[in-house]
Structure formats: C-alpha cells, structure tokens
C-alpha cells in the first residue's frame, strides 16, 4: 500500500507497478484530471489545500476497509496539492486484483469514498473570481 500527498506531479506508472503482484491479473487506475469548466463556468486553474498527516491516515483507513470486504490485492493513492493547471492530474487511485470486476468496483468505490472523507479541498479560480468547492457530501467516516 502507498499513500501520498505531494506538491510534485503524480506518477501513475509508479502506482501501477506498486500495486501489481504476480498474482494480479487486473489493475484499475483512476486519474482525476483538472478540467476547463465546472457548472458552466470556465475554470482557469485549481488550488488544492490538504491536511497531509490526516489525509494519508484516512486514505489508509479507507483502503484497509476496502481490502476487508473485497478480494483485492493492493491499493495505492496519491493526491497532489498546490496550484494545478488544466489537464494536470490531481488524484490517482490504483487497485490490483486477480480479476477485473473486483479491481473496477473497488477502485470506483474508493474514489467515491475518498471524496467524502479525505481532508483535501479545492478552490476553483476563474476569470475575476474564485471559490472553495463544497464536497459532494458531508459525512463522518463510519
């Protein structure tokens, strides 16, 4: 398992290599990418803030919860902070498993869970203004 908050560009291949074992037949890798619009507004760039010590701890918690309920081999998660331009990758989640179904489902569920509980925040900056984005749900981890 690998959990990182970093200001440097993320490294998808390192995550994919990290999670793969000789028993793995499938790796699902998710990229969250900064896009040029949101809610009809043209976005110039994003700024990410994080509570790094807690964020890596919560990332490990949600990964371990997933490993308990799904037959996956390994998980790796990276999130970038600071200013990110359009097209740059903010989030990577890699999951390996023997079979593809488990890798896809666990990776998708981990992205959903990540966005609910990991203490990271993004600010959208557009022409003439900016705003911290409110998350998809306000919910304490179980």
């Amino acid at each position: 398992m690998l959990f990182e908050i970093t200001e440097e560009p993320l490294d998808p291949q390192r995550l994919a290599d990290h999670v793969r074992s000789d028993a793995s037949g499938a790796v699902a890798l998710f990229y969250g990418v900064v896009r040029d619009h949101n809610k009809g507004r043209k976005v110039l760039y994003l700024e990410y803030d994080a509570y790094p010590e807690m964020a890596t701890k919560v990332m490990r918690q949600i990964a371990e919860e997933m490993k308990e309920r799904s037959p996956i081999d390994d998980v790796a998660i990276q999130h970038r902070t600071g200013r990110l331009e359009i097209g740059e990758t903010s989030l990577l989640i890699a999951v390996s498993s023997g079979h593809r179904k488990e890798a896809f489902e666990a990776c998708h569920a981990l992205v959903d869970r990540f966005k609910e509980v990991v203490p990271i925040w993004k600010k959208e900056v557009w022409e003439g203004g900016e705003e911290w984005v409110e998350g998809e749900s306000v919910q304490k981890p179980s």
Partner: protein
Amino acid sequence: MPNVKVLLFARLSELAGTRQTQLELGEGLTVADAYVILSDRYPGLEPLRNSVMYAVNSEYVSSTQPLSPGDELALIPPVSGGSDAV
C-alpha cells in the same frame, strides 16, 4: 494553562487569516465549545459552524468530544478532493 493546537484549512483558514492558532484549555471543554471560542476570535467562522467537521489528533470526532492537553484540533470544512463531480 495547557494548550490545544488548532489547525484551520481551506475556506476556514482564509476567513480566519491564519492556518494555525492555540486555545487555552478550560475544564471539560468540547470541540464544539472550542469552535464558539474561535468564532469569537475570528468572527468570519461563525456562519460555517453547521458545515464544519472536527478531527482530534488526525481522527474524525463528534462535536461533543472533550479536549485534552496537547491535543491537535483540526477544523475540517466539507472536503472536495479529486477533480470531477459525481
């Protein structure tokens, strides 16, 4: 008196104008009490009281959690990692 370290992030740190402060710990003080004291110190925080979550020593806690000397209290606005919406 012993202190509690307080961390503020994102919108809350902008509203308070700082990312970190200290609280003097009164007997039986809960994290909700701490938010009241901080809202007095930084009035911009007051309207966000119902949306904020709390962590003590990097673990989510309820607002009724009592604080202990040396705790690190973090005020957590609604999180929004990643790039896409739903």
